[in-house]
């Protein structure tokens, strides 16, 4: 087993044994070497996303946790949020330049849930139209420029 698999195995164990509220690993989605996961996310109660269900797709390189995972919303329901593009790409610094190997699938999911929860107005990022037309398929290739941290 590679070090990536060993670590993901541990993370999976912890997340199935003691899952955080509103975050659930979709067991059928797991590839045999754990390099791809789908995580089901519930919009938190008392927020604009209450009652909505979302899916996050995770892809890991063999260099995980030194390399950040590729994380994006997938499926039919993409949250409308100022930092989430309509193609599912998420503008969140811990997914690229602020990644640390001490972060995990769980901590990334919780950051995304809290990013949703703190949203005050459902609207698309201002540059959504042009970004979705011109971006790479891999959000990690985007040179994000973390414009505002207030939302």
């Amino acid at each position: 087993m590679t070090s990536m698999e060993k670590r993901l195995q541990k993370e999976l164990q912890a997340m199935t044994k003691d899952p955080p509220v509103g975050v659930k690993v979709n067991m059928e989605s797991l590839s045999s070497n754990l390099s791809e996961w789908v995580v089901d996310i519930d919009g938190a109660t008392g927020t604009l996303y209450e009652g909505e269900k979302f899916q996050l797709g995770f892809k890991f390189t063999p260099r995980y946790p030194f390399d950040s995972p590729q994380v994006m919303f997938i499926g039919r329901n993409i949250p409308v949020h100022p930092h989430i593009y309509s193609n599912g790409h998420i503008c969140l610094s811990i997914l690229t330049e602020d990644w640390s190997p001490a972060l995990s699938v769980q901590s990334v999911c919780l950051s995304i849930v809290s990013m949703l929860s703190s949203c005050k107005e459902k609207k698309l990022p201002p540059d959504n139209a042009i970004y979705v037309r011109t971006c790479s398929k891999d959000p990690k290739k985007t040179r994000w420029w973390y414009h505002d941290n207030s939302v």
Partner: protein
Amino acid sequence: MGNCFKSSSNDDISLLRGNDHHDPALEPAPFVEPPPPYRPQQRMPIFHPSPGVSRPANQLTEDEQIKIAQRLGLINHLPTGKYDGTNKKAKECVICMNEFVFGDELRYLPCMHCYHRECIDDWLMRSFTCPSCMEPVDAALLTTYQTS
């Protein structure tokens, strides 16, 4: 023994060249293939001059080589030790998520976070920050020099 003889004969070259004039039905029963020839590979170490960039040692620019050499030097200044269970707070390495076992080689950062030496060295070559508190290691190193 038959296999040994066969694999060392010149005939396996014709096997490698494909079956164009061989009728597969006439071929002898398949034998266990000899392992691929050993090729002394000069494995280039891979470096990560900046996060997300991976390059073999022979493709680095001069600036990157200098940066890497300096980084290696700095990392070697960070204290190391063997896990002996005395530090009750540090129980596992957050990079590999394995619990420390007696005798594991550890490295201590100036912020007092510690990791398996192998795990943290790999990270520090990419980013000179503590994975747990994100404190830049070089700034902290300088202050320890100034105060001691």
